[in-house]
């Protein structure tokens, strides 16, 4: 009975080395660690927290009322009295930038929430049911994508008159196509997965399979596209406001601050003024893009740590 190799067959207890392979780590923790490895994503997140903080606490931080005109101080250069100078009507640039952040972020977050909702529902239905319904919905998406977005936005804004609500609505109604394509793709590959088959066999209703079985598995790409989408909307809002078709003065927005920078007085006498709103747009969009990239890596199980 000294044959080698069958020793563990006896009554000796089998010890499993639990410390090595059987650690159960919550997925959130793994994702956070992956996210923190991406330095740019961390920088982006910090920037976003600061910018959002500025927007939320604008009334507390802002040194002055953003609409208060002190005409004797017009075109003051950055300095002690006005940290970032004053515009051609003598309004404090810093305060206007802080309040402008509120507008940009509000339009960005709310309209992207709307477009993600529309895009997810349409994409999920198209991908899950497939067939003719899918073909019709996707041709519709192709058509909407063919309109250069700025043309559509401007047309709708002229029809409904520019206001905060119009802008949010317009960006929501025409921003969903990318999400719809993405969600459809996810659903196409997930609908034949085994867990979906199992759910069907159990007689679970389609609506429930779509929303509580498949959708959670497609959340990663959706969140990433939402993050990148907010950056896009902020750029779009700035462009519309710059043309005078977005947020209307005296409400400050980064776009309409740049519009007033076209004023010859500012062009000749206050070269620093247009730099600030443009810089804020740049930093904010960059931060959203970095965070989006970081989230993409964090959600992707194929990318190992």
């Amino acid at each position, binding site marked *: 009975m000294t044959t080698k190799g069958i020793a563990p067959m006896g009554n000796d207890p089998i010890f499993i080395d639990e410390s090595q392979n059987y650690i159960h780590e919550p997925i959130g923790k793994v994702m956070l660690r992956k996210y923190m490895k991406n330095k740019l994503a961390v920088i982006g997140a910090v920037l976003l927290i600061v910018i959002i903080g500025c927007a939320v606490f604008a009334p507390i931080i802002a040194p002055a009322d953003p609409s208060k005109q002190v005409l004797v101080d017009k075109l003051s250069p950055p300095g002690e009295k006005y940290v970032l100078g004053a515009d051609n009507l003598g309004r404090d640039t810093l305060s206007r930038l802080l309040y402008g952040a509120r507008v940009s972020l509000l339009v960005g977050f709310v309209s992207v929430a709307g477009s993600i909702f529309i895009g997810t529902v349409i994409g999920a239905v198209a991908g899950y049911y497939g067939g003719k319904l899918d073909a019709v919905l996707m041709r519709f998406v192709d058509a909407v994508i063919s309109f250069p977005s*700025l*043309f559509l936005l401007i047309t709708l804004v002229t*029809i409904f008159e520019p206001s905060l609500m119009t802008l949010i609505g317009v960006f929501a109604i025409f921003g969903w196509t990318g999400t719809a394509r993405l969600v459809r793709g996810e659903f196409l590959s997930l609908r034949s997965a085994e867990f979906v088959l199992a759910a069907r066999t159990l007689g679970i209703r389609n609506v429930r399979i779509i929303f509580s079985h498949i959708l959670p598995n497609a959340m990663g790409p959706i969140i990433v596209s939402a993050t990148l989408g907010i950056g896009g909307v902020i750029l779009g809002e700035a*462009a519309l406001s710059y043309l005078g078709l977005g947020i209307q003065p005296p409400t400050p927005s980064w776009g309409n601050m740049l519009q007033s920078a*076209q004023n010859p007085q500012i062009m000749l006498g206050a070269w620093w003024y247009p730099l600030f709103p443009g810089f804020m747009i740049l930093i904010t969009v960059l931060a959203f893009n970095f965070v989006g990239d970081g989230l993409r890596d964090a959600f992707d199980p194929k990318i190992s740590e």
Partner: protein
Amino acid sequence: MTTYIVRRTLMAIPLLFIITIISFIMMQMAPGDPTALMMDPMIKQENLVAYKEAYGLNDNVIVQYVRWLGNMVTGNFGESLIRQGVPVSALIVARLPNTLILMLVSSIIAFLISIPLGVISATKRNSLTDYSITFVSFLGIATPNFWIGLVLIMFLSVHMGWFPTGGVSTLGEPFSIWDRIHHLILPAFVLATADMAGLTRYSRSSMLDVLRQDYIRTAKANGFRNKTVIFKHGLRNGLIPIITILGLMLPSFIGGSVIIESIFAWPGIGLLFVEAAFQRDYPVIMAVVVIAAALVVIGNLIADILYAMFDPRIEY
């Protein structure tokens, strides 16, 4: 090949249909009806009814759509509400060449700058040069190009006086090529910046794909100089996927022209559109929107066909 071209072209037709339907629905949503803008407010009721009848405004919506579509196919986009009596098609024909020149020159600029940058980035992968180019591209994606335009006008035109602040030519001067080019440089460059970043990223990854291929290694092993391998063997193949990007760039180019033409007072389709938007000149707005979307569909169609022609591996 021919079958593919025919099939691909036929696929574009339903798309154009949906585009016209969406545009028509948007036009129907516009408040008020055209008579309110065109007519004397003191007009008698029976005259108003007669006008509405004459312009077909009392017809069923579907009848109106079919008539509008039929007119549009024959090049009749109606008349401008603001500039009364001027056909929309005449306005567009007058402005279109300016937009096309701007788009053509700026796409050449975008390609001339981005593709070499992408190639350098790919061949010197993970070097400081590569990282710098990548970083600048990231900045480029996040920067609103109208801001770049504004800042350039302020420094180069207003302060330095190197370039004119806008327009296609100096007013009151006789036509000269140099004057035209002088006016074109800034707007074309700024419009190009919109797509340069994306194009650089794209040509970088396309080149990286190609440089990993076996035939590149074979060429190197055969003793060809590095330059020959990169430009003759690598770039030629790396450029193929970039053709598709041309099609994808078109919407942002046409959309970008709206902003750039406004900043530089460049009298093209984009400026016409913004002017019409401010004046609520709906026939002009709708015509430009439909034409812009149709251009995008046609651009994608051409890009797909070119792609199929250049890449012999693809069979249809």
